[in-house]
């Protein structure tokens, strides 16, 4: 028996060691890792329910709704709560007409990561599907229905080019904004992007205690204070756009490629900003599908390009206001001086043609503008040189962005320095001559032309254009109210500008004016036509591609200017024949709308 007692001693040692192992493991779990596990157990039973905040609305200047929200019911799955993934996947796929394997894959791949984070299955289910899932919630554990907000466009495609579209948030946007959820849709272009921070709501959340089956439990026993945060809808953004005028602008453009810009000459507020062809923002509501996206991107007519602010064109003769003001103000000419136009202009060994082969004969400043004589401008350009010309191009805002707040391009106001930097070549006199009629290196956006026109109309103030009139919070608090901002005061005496303005009235109203088709009976219109030559390097392009761009820029009423209207029709041909009648229609609509509003106000 002594033998066995020795063995029992060994057994006791083994017993002690075994309990030491158990005790150490408990020490590790409870003492060393206790805090970590305490966090786990919180996550286990605290479910955070998101309360998504809707984006703010986008309204027109009179409060008409351009972009609003509607409720959508989205289906998410919390992978951790699913007991039987294949069963759940096949049930959901049947109701929602989705691929069962894809659902299963999505849930499983999320399992390995953060399994309590909801996985999006589909957005915006219909009422029948909603009712079906609601009725079977107990057998579909892990499925959650989230109420979300989707964009809606009561005016359809109107204004799409400046309203912009929304899309799934990308990683860079997520990193810069801690308030964005990874399932959010954010502005990708236009006002939606430019005023993203104003439009985006502040998401709220609600913490709930749930049991192991995911059921909400009343008891507050396990956590002293549950955190809740109210969701706050985004601010409403009220644009300067008059959607009725916008509609008229888009309608008159029709099937043409081009742009129309209408601005208030006294405030810089943009009343209409049309660009065609355009796209349908409704395609982007739930995140665009790759096929539609590829079609948009590969479309040769560039529907995603906002021609009014991003399209760069040679301005042609609408640019002649710049050398006119420059030469007058710098004293190179006065209104009386005449230039003889034989239909061409010789400078050194080069010959530059006037658009009118037979020539205009004797022209002074006024008749040169009215008839759009090129030779007159060749002459004064050569007299003043590129430095003087460039000074006024820059003063009128060319070569830099207007800072409208949506996508735009700066274009080119050429100078010696610019050419040196761009091409590392010196400047030629001939290039000054070409620049004076808006050809050569000069490239501008329709918006820049409109702002120049407004500056002429308002006696020399280049205003910063604005598309935002007002921003109002959900609670009604005014966050922003537009006040006119002057970008630069053009260094020109008033009587000099008056000469140019008078000439612009002549363009539309004189018997020989190039813009007569913009003439209105009961409102005096001032304007300037432009026909910009297109230098196409694309030999395969159709004949139409070689046609000139048609321009017309105008303001009215001439005696006390209110609005400026700029029209560009790509490859439209003669500005006076194609663009001027379009501007006339816009001015008519503007006048009619104004009279209607005044009539309403009087009632």
């Amino acid at each position, binding site marked *: 028996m002594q033998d066995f007692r020795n063995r*029992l001693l060994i*057994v*006791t040692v083994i017993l002690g060691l075994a309990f030491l192992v158990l005790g150490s*493991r*408990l*020490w590790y*779990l409870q*003492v060393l*890792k206790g805090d970590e596990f305490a966090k786990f157990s919180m996550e*286990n039973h605290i479910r955070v329910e998101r309360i998504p905040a809707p984006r703010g609305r986008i309204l027109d200047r009179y409060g008409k709704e351009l972009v609003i929200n509607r409720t959508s019911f989205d289906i998410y799955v919390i992978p951790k709560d699913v007991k039987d993934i294949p069963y759940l996947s096949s049930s959901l796929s049947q109701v929602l007409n989705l691929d069962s394997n894809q659902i299963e894959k999505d849930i499983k791949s999320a399992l390995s990561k953060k399994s309590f984070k909801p996985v999006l299955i589909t957005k915006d289910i219909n009422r029948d599907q909603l009712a079906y899932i609601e009725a079977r919630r107990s057998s579909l554990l892990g499925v959650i229905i989230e109420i979300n907000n989707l964009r809606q466009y009561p005016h359809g495609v109107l204004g799409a080019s400046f309203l912009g579209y929304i899309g799934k948030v990308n990683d860079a946007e997520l990193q810069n904004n801690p308030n964005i959820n990874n399932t959010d849709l954010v502005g990708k272009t236009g006002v939606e992007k430019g005023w993203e921070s104003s439009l985006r709501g502040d998401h709220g959340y609600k913490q709930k205690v749930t049991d192991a089956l995911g059921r909400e439990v009343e008891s507050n026993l396990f956590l002293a204070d549950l955190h809740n945060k109210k969701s706050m809808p985004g601010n409403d953004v009220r644009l300067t756009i008059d959607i009725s005028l916008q509609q008229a602008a888009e309608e008159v453009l029709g099937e043409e490629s081009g742009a129309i810009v209408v601005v208030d000459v006294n405030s810089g507020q943009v009343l209409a900003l049309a660009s065609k062809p355009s796209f349908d923002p409704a395609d982007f509501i739930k995140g665009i599908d790759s096929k539609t996206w590829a079609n948009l991107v590969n479309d040769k007519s560039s529907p995603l390009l906002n021609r009014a602010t991003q399209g760069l064109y040679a301005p042609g003769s609408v640019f002649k206001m710049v050398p006119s003001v420059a030469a007058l103000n710098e004293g190179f000419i006065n209104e009386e001086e005449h230039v003889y136009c034989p239909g061409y202009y010789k400078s050194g060994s080069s010959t530059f043609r006037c658009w009118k082969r037979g020539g205009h004969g004797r022209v002074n400043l006024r008749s040169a503008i009215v008839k759009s004589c090129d030779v007159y401008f060749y002459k004064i350009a050569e007299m003043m040189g590129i430095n003087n010309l460039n000074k006024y191009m820059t003063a009128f805002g060319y070569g830099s962005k207007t800072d409208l707040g949506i996508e735009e391009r700066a274009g080119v106001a050429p100078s010696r320095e610019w050419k040196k930097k761009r091409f590392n070549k010196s400047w030629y006199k001939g290039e000054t001559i070409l620049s004076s009629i808006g050809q050569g290196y000069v490239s501008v956006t329709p918006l820049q032309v409109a702002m120049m026109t407004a500056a002429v109309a308002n006696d020399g103030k280049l205003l910063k254009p604005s598309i935002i009139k007002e921003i109002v919070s959900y609670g009604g608090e005014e966050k922003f109210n537009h006040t006119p901002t002057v970008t630069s005061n053009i260094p020109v005496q008033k009587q000099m500008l008056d000469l140019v303005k008078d000439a612009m009235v002549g363009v539309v109203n004189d018997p020989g004016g190039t813009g007569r088709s913009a003439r209105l009976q009961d409102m005096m219109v001032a304007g300037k036509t432009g026909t910009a030559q297109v230098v196409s390097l694309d030999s395969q392009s159709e004949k139409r591609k070689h046609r000139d761009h048609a321009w017309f820029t105008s303001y009215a009423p001439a005696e006390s200017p209110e609005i400026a209207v700029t029209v560009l029709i790509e490859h439209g041909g003669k500005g006076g024949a194609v663009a001027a009648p379009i501007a006339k229609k816009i001015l008519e609509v503007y006048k009619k709308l104004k009279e209607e509003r005044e009539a309403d106000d009087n009632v």
Partner: protein
Amino acid sequence: MIMFDRRLLKNFGWSLFLMTLAFCAISLLNLYSASYETGLISFKKQFIWIGVGIITLALVSFLNYRFLKQYSIYIYVFSLLLLLYVLVFGKEVSGSRSWIDIASIATIQPSELVKIAVILVLARFYDNDYQATPYGFLDLIKPIILIAIPFVLILLQPDLGTALTMLLVSGSMVLFMGVKKWSVAFILIVILGVSFYSWHYTLKPYQKDRIRTFINPSSDPLNAGYNSIQSQIAIGSGGVTGKGLRSGSQTQLRFIPAQQTDFAFSVLAEEWGFLGSIFVLLLYFTIILWMLDTSSRAKEKFSMLVCFGIAAMFFWHVVVNVGMVIGLLPVTGVPLLIFSYGGSSTLTAMIGIGIVLGIRMRKFSMSGEAIDLG
């Protein structure tokens, strides 16, 4: 048969008895918390079982162990018959035919009680055998058969956890009595062979899953690994002092699986923390030590080996159950004796303690002394 000798009462193992009572109280308190949300049904039932168990303990302790020795074969055969009965007429609960329904009042799981019978019959075998040298394989054929029959019958139910603990307990006894080195090697090879065979041909998919997820619990957190992870979260989140009675979120919101039975220890660890769980482990440790002490004082091989066997039974239940609950061992359906809700395992534990107490009381009745044995 039952001797009302004054010396018996004087030598009654009060310390073991009091430890047992303390243990019963703690287990009931724990079960109260674990079953509160489900209407205290299992708490009330366990209350009755513990009452029955204490009475049984008392009765068994006054039974002379020589009686047990004499009748060990019959007890063994009777228990085998019960196992056969269960296989044919047993009540099926979650895929296993392990239960006998007694007049719809209670259910009994004979496989738990069989452990005591196997301990007794093995002790009897070694008591008769006076071999001095370690046992060779051929010498062990008889005990191996004695172990193998109930082992296979329990496996057939199938109840892997109970079969394994029975094997561990009886294996411990055989090893304790000494086995030749080559025989140990041979038996190990046989066990490995059987394991390999059963992995490929007899284990059910859920059993394989359990072993797989034991190796990597987070591989499949929703299915087999779920239990282990939730249990470890519960234990860890208890920290040093615990969340307090009825305040464990893992328990009360039922994140802990089988929290009234196999995972009762995680409830304790969550609500009473490191201090509580270490206290209960120490209590177990002391009880087992006490049993080994009794074993070392025994004057006969039989009583020594019975005490050792019962100590081994407690030991393996603690190691396998707590090891599973704290994530050191795979999830097998092995209860923590007395602590887990369950009549049969509680009764088995009480009978075991009763036998040890009975042996302790008679430690002065030397083998040579004339004691009424009928």
